C-alpha cells in the first residue's frame, strides 16, 4: 500500500510546444494510501496513459512519479510492486486457477506452504475456492477477470492495484457483481485502488474520489457529490449526469444578468462581467408558474417516460433544455408553453469553461 504522487506531463513528441502535442498536460496529483480513485473520461483523454505511467509500463517524458516519497519514475512495474488488471482477462491458459494465483509468488521464491495459504485466502475472498483446480482457460470472462485481479492481490505487499476498464468484456448482469466485489476488497484490504473507465456509473459507484479528464487534462478531482453539484468545468457538467448539465449563454452587464433579450432577476452572487455560461442540471431545473416574469419562456418539444424519471425536452429560443421530473410530478404536454426557473442555489456560472460562481 502506498501513496502515489504525480508531478508530470507526457508527450509522444520530442519537443512539445502547444497543448495539442501533449498526451497528458502538466499535472500535479496525489493518491493517498488506501484510497479508491477513478480516472474518468472519454476515449483518448489520456487516462490510460496516466495509468500506465503509474504502473511503470510507460515512462513520462517530463516529471516524476513518487511512491511513498521515493522516486520511481524509471522503476519497472515489478520494482514498484503494483498490480494491473487489463481490459480483457489476462491469464495463463495452461495453468489451473491455483497455479495462476500462485505464479507471482512462485517467481519471488516464496515458500510453498506460504503460497498455498495465501492463494487459499485470496481465492476465498474472490469466491473461487471451489474452482482452484480447474484449468483457467475454460472459465467465463468474469471469472477470468477475478483471477487477473487475484494475481494482483496475492502479493501481501502490493503497493496499488490499477484497473484499466476491467469490466469491458463482462456481461452487463455480472458487472454489478464484480463492482460489489471490488468495493468489498477495498474495504477489507484497504489497498490503493485506481480505476480507469469511461463509464460514469462505474466511476461514481466505485470511487471515493473521481478524476475527470478530457484531452490530456485533469479538469476536476473530487467526490461524486462535488462533481455533481459543483462541476469545476463545463466538461464535467456535461459528462457527469444523465442527461448532462444544461448550458445557456448569458451576459453579465452593468444592469445585471441577461439571456439574450430577457433580463434575469438579480443574483446575490458576484459574477465577472462579459459572456458567461449558465449551467443547471436537469434535476434542478424547475418548471415555474406560467406567468413568472423571472423565468425563461420555453416550449415543450418532447416528453419521455424513462421509468425512474420523466424527461421533458424544451426549447427556449434556439436553446434546448432538458428537465428531469419525478415520475409522479405534474407533466406538461408537448407543445405547451412553460417557464423555466434557471436561477437557483444549484446553478453554476462558467467563464471560459471554468467555474466562476
Amino acid at each position: 500500500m502506498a501513496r502515489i504522487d504525480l508531478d508530470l506531463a507526457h508527450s509522444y513528441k520530442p519537443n512539445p510546444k502547444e497543448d495539442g502535442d501533449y498526451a497528458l498536460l502538466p499535472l500535479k496529483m496525489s493518491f493517498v494510501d488506501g484510497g479508491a480513485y477513478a480516472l474518468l473520461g472519454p476515449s483518448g483523454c489520456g487516462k490510460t496513459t496516466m495509468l500506465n505511467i503509474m504502473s511503470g509500463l510507460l515512462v513520462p517524458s517530463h516529471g516524476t512519479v513518487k511512491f511513498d516519497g521515493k522516486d520511481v519514475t524509471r522503476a519497472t512495474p515489478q520494482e514498484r510492486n503494483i498490480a494491473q488488471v487489463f481490459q480483457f482477462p489476462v491469464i495463463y491458459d495452461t495453468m489451473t486457477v491455483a497455479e495462476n494465483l500462485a505464479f507471482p509468488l512462485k517467481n519471488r521464491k516464496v515458500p510453498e506452504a506460504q503460497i498455498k495459504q495465501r492463494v487459499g485466502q485470496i481465492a476465498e475472498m474472490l469466491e473461487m475456492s471451489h474452482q482452484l483446480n480447474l484449468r483457467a482457460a475454460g472459465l467465463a470472462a468474469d471469472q477470468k477477470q477475478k483471477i487477473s485481479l487475484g494475481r494482483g492481490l496475492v502479493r501481501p505487499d502490493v503497493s496499488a492495484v490499477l484497473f484499466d476498464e476491467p469490466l469491458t468484456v463482462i456481461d452487463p448482469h455480472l458487472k454489478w457483481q464484480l463492482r460489489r466485489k471490488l468495493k468489498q476488497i477495498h474495504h477489507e484490504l484497504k489497498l490503493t485502488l485506481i480505476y480507469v473507465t469511461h463509464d460514469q456509473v462505474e466511476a461514481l459507484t466505485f470511487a471515493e474520489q473521481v478524476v475527470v479528464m478530457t484531452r490530456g487534462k485533469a479538469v476536476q478531482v473530487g467526490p461524486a457529490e462535488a462533481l455533481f453539484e459543483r462541476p469545476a468545468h463545463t466538461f464535467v457538467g456535461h459528462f457527469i449526469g444523465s442527461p448532462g448539465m444544461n448550458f445557456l449563454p448569458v451576459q453579465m452587464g452593468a444592469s445585471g444578468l441577461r439571456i439574450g433579450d430577457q433580463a434575469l432577476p438579480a443574483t446575490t452572487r458576484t459574477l465577472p462581467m462579459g459572456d458567461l455560461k449558465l449551467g443547471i442540471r436537469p434535476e434542478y431545473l424547475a418548471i415555474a408558474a406560467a406567468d413568472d416574469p423571472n423565468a425563461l419562456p420555453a416550449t415543450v418539444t418532447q416528453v419521455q417516460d424513462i421509468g425512474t424519471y420523466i424527461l421533458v425536452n424544451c426549447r427556449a429560443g434556439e436553446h434546448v433544455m432538458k428537465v428531469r421530473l419525478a415520475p409522479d410530478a405534474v407533466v406538461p404536454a408537448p407543445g405547451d408553453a412553460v417557464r423555466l426557473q434557471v436561477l437557483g442555489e444549484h446553478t453554476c456560472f462558467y467563464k471560459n469553461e471554468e467555474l466562476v460562481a
Partner: protein
Amino acid sequence: MNDGKFQKRSVLLLLYIAFALLPIYWMVNMSFKTNEEILSSFSLFPQHFTWANYKTIFTDESWYSGYINSLIYVAINTVISITVALPAAYAFSRYSFLGDKHVFFWLLTNRMTPPAVFLLPFFQLYSTMGMMDTHIAVALAHLLFNVPLAVWILEGFMSGIPREIDETAYIDGYTFPRFFLTVFLPLIKAGVGVAAFFCFMFSWVELLLARTLTSVNAKPIVATMTRTVSASGMDWAVLAAAGTLTIVPGAIVIWFVRHYIAKGFAMGRV
C-alpha cells in the same frame, strides 16, 4: 531487457541469415558468369562478369512470357483462395454445425496426395472442358492445395479473437459485412498476410500441374526453366539467372504484406 539474452538472439538470427543467403549468393554469383566459367573454376566473384544470361531471359519471349503467365495465374489463384477461405474460416471458427470437424480435416487431406497422382485426371478433366493451356485452368487446379491451407491458417488466427468482439459489434449496430471488413479483418491481419503469401508461394513454385495443363499460351516460368538442358548440356548460367529473377515477384509480395504479418493483434479501445 536482459542484454545478454538479447545478444544471443541477434547472433542466432545473424547466423541463420548468413546460412539462408549463402546458396542464394552462390546462385546470383553463377548468374553473372558464363557456363564455362561456372564449370571450370571456383571464384567468389565472377571473373568475367556478364549480363548475357539476363539478356537472354529478357529478350527471349519464351522466357519473359513465362514470368507474366506465372504471375497471372498465381494472382488469380491467390485472390480466389483468400476470398473463399475467409467466410469458410469464419464459419469453422465461430459456429458448430453438422460435420464441421470432418470437413475441416477433409480439407487438409487434399494436400496429402502427391500431385503426380492428379496429373492424369486433371489432364482429362480440363481437356474435356476445353480449358487446356489457359491461365484460369492452372489457377483453378491450384485451388486444390491452396484453399485448404488458407482456411486452416485463417481459422487459426480467427479463433484467437475473443467472440466478445463480435458480440459487442452487433450490439453497437454493425451489420455483418461492415463488422467483418472494418473490425474483424484488421484484427487478423497477420493471418491474412501469411495466408496470402503462402498461397502465392505454393502456386508460384508448383511445377507438375502447371506444366501438364499448359503448352504455349499460359506456359509458366517454372516450366520454361526445366527445359534448360540443351545439346551442350545443362545451361547452368541462364538457369541461375532465371532462378534469381523468380525470387523477385515473391520478394515484392512479402514486402507488401510485411505490415500485415508484423502488426498482428492490436486491441483497440472497445
